[in-house]
């Protein structure tokens, strides 16, 4: 395999974006940041790939206008996945592995606040028997949380501890939509939202966009002293059916971790939009107790749909660039109750 590294990352997260339902105008400043970080122009980018959702934007072809943000001419080598940024990055990584290109810029965007997100996501379910019941995302996550509590795999205190740590760490993240340390006791005293979930157990509805830059070999070394070399990148999916899955587990997360070599990871950014899902992921990824989880504050502090998974990879890459860690992990999820998962490990070797 070719050595490929994450060498650029830019993000925006906000409670409500005052602009178009697609957020594509957010991309121009993000690309500018990527060019500034890399010293490149658009002509240095060998491949572009984006992630977005038409249902989130409430229209068909939401990604089409995003291409305008790249610029009109010359035409670009470009693709799009109806998935999170992390999978757009996967497609770009594959493209670089074929040897066709040496560099890629991937991006994603989405305005969750344009509709009622938890209801929009019900459109993701099995359309014949599930969607007509309109089980919303928060309720489904509540069922999952309850299943874990009933099985004795976790409890409300463990969930509150995840929230406490996340919102405390989020105070150092300028993009965090929700932040502020409290105490486990105080969090547990707050009212139920979708029993056993309290509002803080659920990621805030977030608008945003993000971009990641990949480069191979010397192109990466030209950009940074310590590129975040991708040492493992794998993804996997479980059946959707909530009735046939053990909701306390996520086999696809374990499979992705097995394919990405997580041994020796010091920092893990986990895309767990609900507090108990972090507990599921720590177990499935086999992360040791001394691994620092979500130092950015994680998705409980901000979760822009279709870029939040990629943001986890970007945050994990920054820890390599800064020399704070030698090996980090970024994780992304999609679908109800951790159905689909991707794991990317990065190392700071020379």
């Amino acid at each position, binding site marked *: 395999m070719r050595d490929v590294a994450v060498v650029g990352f830019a993000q925006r997260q906000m409670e409500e974006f005052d602009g178009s339902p697609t957020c594509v105008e957010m991309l121009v400043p993000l690309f500018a940041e990527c060019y500034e970080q890399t010293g490149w122009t658009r002509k240095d980018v060998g491949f572009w790939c984006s992630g977005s959702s038409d249902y989130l934007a409430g229209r*068909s*072809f939401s990604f089409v206008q995003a291409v*305008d943000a790249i610029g009109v001419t010359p035409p670009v080598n470009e693709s799009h996945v109806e998935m999170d940024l992390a999978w757009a990055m996967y497609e770009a990584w594959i493209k670089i592995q*074929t040897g066709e290109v040496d560099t890629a810029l991937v991006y994603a965007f989405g305005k969750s606040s344009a509709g009622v997100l938890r209801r929009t996501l019900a459109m993701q379910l099995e359309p014949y028997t599930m969607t007509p019941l309109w089980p919303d995302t928060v309720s489904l996550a509540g069922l999952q949380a309850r299943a874990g509590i009933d099985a004795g795999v976790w409890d409300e205190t463990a969930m509150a501890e995840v929230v406490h740590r996340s919102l405390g760490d989020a105070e150092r993240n300028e993009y965090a939509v929700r932040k502020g340390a409290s105490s486990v006791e105080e969090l547990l005293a707050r009212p139920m939202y979708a029993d056993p979930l309290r509002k803080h157990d659920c990621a805030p509805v977030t608008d945003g966009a993000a971009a990641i830059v990949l480069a191979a070999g010397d192109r990466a070394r030209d950009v940074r002293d310590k590129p975040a070399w991708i040492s493992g990148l794998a993804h996997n999916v479980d059946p959707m059916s909530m009735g046939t899955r053990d909701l306390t587990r996520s086999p696809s997360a374990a499979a992705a971790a097995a394919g990405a070599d997580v041994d020796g990871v010091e920092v893990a950014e986990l895309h767990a939009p609900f507090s108990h899902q972090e507990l599921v992921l720590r177990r499935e990824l086999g992360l040791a107790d001394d691994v620092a989880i979500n130092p950015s504050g994680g998705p409980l502090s901000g979760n822009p749909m279709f870029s939040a998974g990629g943001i986890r990879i970007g945050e994990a890459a920054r820890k390599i660039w800064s020399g704070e860690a030698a090996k980090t992990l970024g994780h992304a999820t999609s679908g109800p109750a951790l159905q689909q998962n991707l794991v990317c490990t990065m190392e700071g070797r020379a």
Partner: protein
Amino acid sequence: MAKQPAAVIGIGQTHHRAKREDVSMAGLCREAMDRALEDAGLTLDEIDAIVVGKAPDLFEGVMMPELFLAEALGAAGKPLLRVHTAGSVGGSTAIVASSLVQAGVHKKVLTVAYEKQSESNAMWALSVPIPFNMPVHAGAGGYFAPHVRSYIRRSGAPNHIGAIVAAKDRNNALKNPYAHLHNEGTTVESVMASQMLWDPIRYDETCPSSDGACALVIASEDVAASSPNPAWIHGTVMRSEATSGAERDQVNPQASRDAAAALWKQAGITHPIDEIDMAEIYVPFSWFEPMWLESLGFAEPGEGWKLTESGATALDGRMPVNCSGGVLSSNPIGASGMLRFGEAALQVRGLAGEHQVDGARRALGHAYGGGSQFFAMWVVGSEKPAS
């Protein structure tokens, strides 16, 4: 590491119809997938990864349907990707699946593209009013008709060229048991007599709205060695250009010309018309045949219609185009690009049945989408590529 050789060893498609009420979305996909797997001599369990492609989710009314389809498509426990690049998506999806093999990451990839247009209404799905955007409400025909008029004005083509294409493709479709339209007795005269929809595009010059799917099994060199007739991938390309921009030429877009140039270079082709034995080109409205013939370099600018008029693009012509009946005869939008890619592969494998071009050894698969701004193409051949 250099690009690994990859080949198509299995091809499957559904019978395309206006409404496939006998199958669900999963059933539609499996119909194509099971045919592709049988062709490849593989089972779903042996597949390493699944790549799904389709056009906008509003066409069926399910957000990211690959998630609920994951288990039925045999993707559970495997990597699953979902590609969406507008009308070119069937082609782009095949290219993404190929790249998984060419990157050396997987050896046996199954890709499926589908559209079940009868679940929703494409005109509605394409015309949802968007705040702060100029409404088009024209559908695809209304959008492309001015481009066709512009082509006719520029090239001086006679008015019946589009009808020649339509009559040819509809008659080719009679030889393809999977085609949606089997309109016996279509002639240039009958096409010219059909109703004008979007001047100069007549009813019989437009694609149908279909339910259908196409699936391909793409394999590495060692796996393909056991196939009696692999279609080797000689080149793939994707190019996109922006929507806005006064400098755009939507009749002969730069993204199309750039894509073709890059593709021919990859495949080692210098004279496409002499070195390509047949082409499956995305022609949703008849006039796009001469337009794309020029853009792809099969004819000089302004000369494409002469190739069509001469009969060169007929099944027994010098440069056969859309022997399957093309998009004009079957149009499950998300799958239409993969059908072009798959039909090109069928031809070089010698498996195209009644619409086989004698001795086809190298073929082009082509797809485009958006406002003539997204392009995906590949060249496949019966011989392993030289480099």
